[in-house]
């Protein structure tokens, strides 16, 4: 970006050098010292070359080079008084360097920003005024204003451009860092998940205290995987929740959760009500079928309704013994499940038979 700006300064200088040369060739016949005119042109050409070379490399863009640049232009402006005739100068003839003298103003603006641009514009204007002792209001005055505007505005634009460039660079750097971090995280996550699964599998195979460790590792594996999966989930229509994502975290060594591969969407209130009922049913399992009972949760999407079944492999009881079940407090819990389902417009049904465990089936219709 900065390099381009400096190139623009050099291009401007070359173009204005050609313009100045045309004026000098045209007017040299009328000059008081034509040889002085040719000498000034030679100096401008040489200086154009020197600055082009200097400004190409960052080391050449030092303050003293730019200051010298400014002085050379000012000196050439003032030399007009000696080279040209007083009559022509007073009649408003262009200075020897003419527009070429604005190049160092641009250089200052690029190097030092709006204030440096303004200050250098002021300096070149002072040289212009010194060259025209009898100030004709028109052309010189508007020339001065143009110089000041060029210096200030281009300095401002350059700063703005450089800042934008820095911002873009910073954003690109952050982006690249995020992508890299994500790549590393994927690898680490995968390794962690694999190890957790390994600990879970081996621990539960070994039994005893190792089984407890295995169970904990299994829980963490599911939790971490659910967390990671959240990022990549497709977005659902607002207000809908995927029942699977609510029920899945129940899965561990004892509880098996089976779901379809596609999202099971329900209104958020219905979905959370349903998962609350599943929680109650699973609490029921632990309380009545024992700590070691296994349980299976099955989520089915039948289109017009969503069905969630919670089955345990506990002792179960005969339907006729519902009174006993009520006495055990089991019915109370199931009543709370029924209540939850009624709130969300669904039904709950408890079935049990001896030796085949107990099953709670929750159904919610889609409207």
């Amino acid at each position, binding site marked *: 970006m900065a390099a381009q700006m400096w190139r623009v300064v050099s291009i401007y200088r070359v173009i204005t050098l050609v313009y100045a040369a045309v004026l000098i060739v045209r007017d040299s016949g009328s000059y008081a010292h034509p040889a002085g005119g040719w000498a000034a042109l030679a100096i401008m050409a040489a200086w154009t070359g020197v600055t082009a070379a200097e400004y190409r490399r960052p080391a050449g863009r030092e303050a003293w080079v730019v200051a010298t640049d400014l002085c050379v232009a000012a000196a050439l402006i003032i030399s007009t008084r000696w080279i040209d005739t007083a009559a022509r100068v007073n009649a408003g003839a262009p200075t020897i360097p003419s527009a070429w003298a604005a190049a160092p103003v641009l250089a200052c603006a690029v190097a030092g920003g709006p204030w440096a641009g303004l200050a250098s514009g002021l300096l070149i204007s002072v040289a212009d005024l010194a060259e025209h002792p009898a100030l004709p209001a028109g052309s010189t005055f508007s020339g001065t204003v143009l110089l000041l505007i060029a210096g200030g505005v281009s300095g401002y634009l350059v700063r703005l451009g450089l800042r934008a460039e820095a911002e873009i660079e910073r954003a690109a750097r952050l982006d690249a860092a995020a992508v890299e971090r994500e790549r590393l995280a994927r690898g680490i996550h*995968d*390794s962690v*998940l*694999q*190890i*957790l*699964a*390994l600990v*879970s*599998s*081996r621990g*539960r*195979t070994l039994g005893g205290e190792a089984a407890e460790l295995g169970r904990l*590792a*299994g829980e963490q*594996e*599911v939790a971490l*995987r*659910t967390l990671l*999966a959240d990022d990549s989930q*497709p977005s*659902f229509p607002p207000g*809908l929740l995927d029942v699977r994502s609510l029920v*899945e975290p129940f*899965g561990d*060594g004892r509880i*098996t*959760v*089976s*779901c*379809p*591969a*596609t*999202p*099971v*969407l329900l209104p958020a209130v219905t979905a959370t009500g349903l998962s609350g009922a599943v929680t109650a049913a699973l609490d029921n399992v632990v309380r009545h079928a024992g700590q070691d009972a*296994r*349980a*299976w949760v*099955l*989520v*089915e*999407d*039948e*289109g017009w309704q969503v069905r969630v*079944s919670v*089955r345990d*492999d506990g002792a179960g009881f005969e339907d006729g013994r519902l009174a006993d079940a009520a006495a055990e407090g089991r019915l109370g819990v199931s009543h709370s499940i029924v209540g939850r389902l009624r709130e969300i417009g669904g039904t709950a049904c408890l079935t049990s038979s001896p030796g*085949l465990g107990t*099953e709670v089936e929750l159904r919610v219709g889609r409207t």
Partner: protein
Amino acid sequence: MSGEPDTTTAAAGPAVRVLIVDDHPIWREGTARYLAEAGFTIAGTASDGAQALRITAAARPDVVLLDLNLPDQNGAEVTRSLLTAHPAVRVLMLSASGERHDVLNAVTAGAVGYVLKSAQLTELVAAVRSASVGQPVFTSELAGLVLGEYRRLAGPGGAAAVTVSRGRSDTERSSAPRLTDRETDVLRLVAKGLTYPQIAERLTLSTRTVQNHVGNTLTKLQLHNKAQLVRYAMENGVD
């Protein structure tokens, strides 16, 4: 586990040759050691799909225990290439939890089933034995997935179609495989964790019939998948 077969049938014959494909060395080596201790012959180990194909050609395993996520190809692709080149080989997927889509794809591509990586080793041994005699390894999770897949194929799409890449035309839907009521009953009971004998008792069927029903549900999906692939190939001018 609901999918556990009667292990006596497979245990008697010559040792089952197993190829273990996993990109995690700790898993590969650990599983190989354990299966060797359990009486299997380790035909080899591989760390990616291409290697698995090469070794299968040379080592002739009975069962390929395949990690679902390999660095070079996904489980379904490896399964398809393995079965095309070696139709007699049984592919058993080993997956982490929460990779349902990939599991389903691998199973419809022809894998006989899948075992969770966090499963107990005894479950893994039972699954490999079951796979070696060509019996589907039907865990309750897989039953849930298969039930869902049949409903997705038959259904009008709707909310469930969010993750499906393209809509299904009417012809596709009418050609979609369907479960019989009996198969649905069986699958639902498998998904709820009942063993085959328990299901047989509840539905007053023989255990053998229950096994057949379960096997059929998978075969229908696999055939449908194959037909879809052929149709896709013809429509897109692939020879």
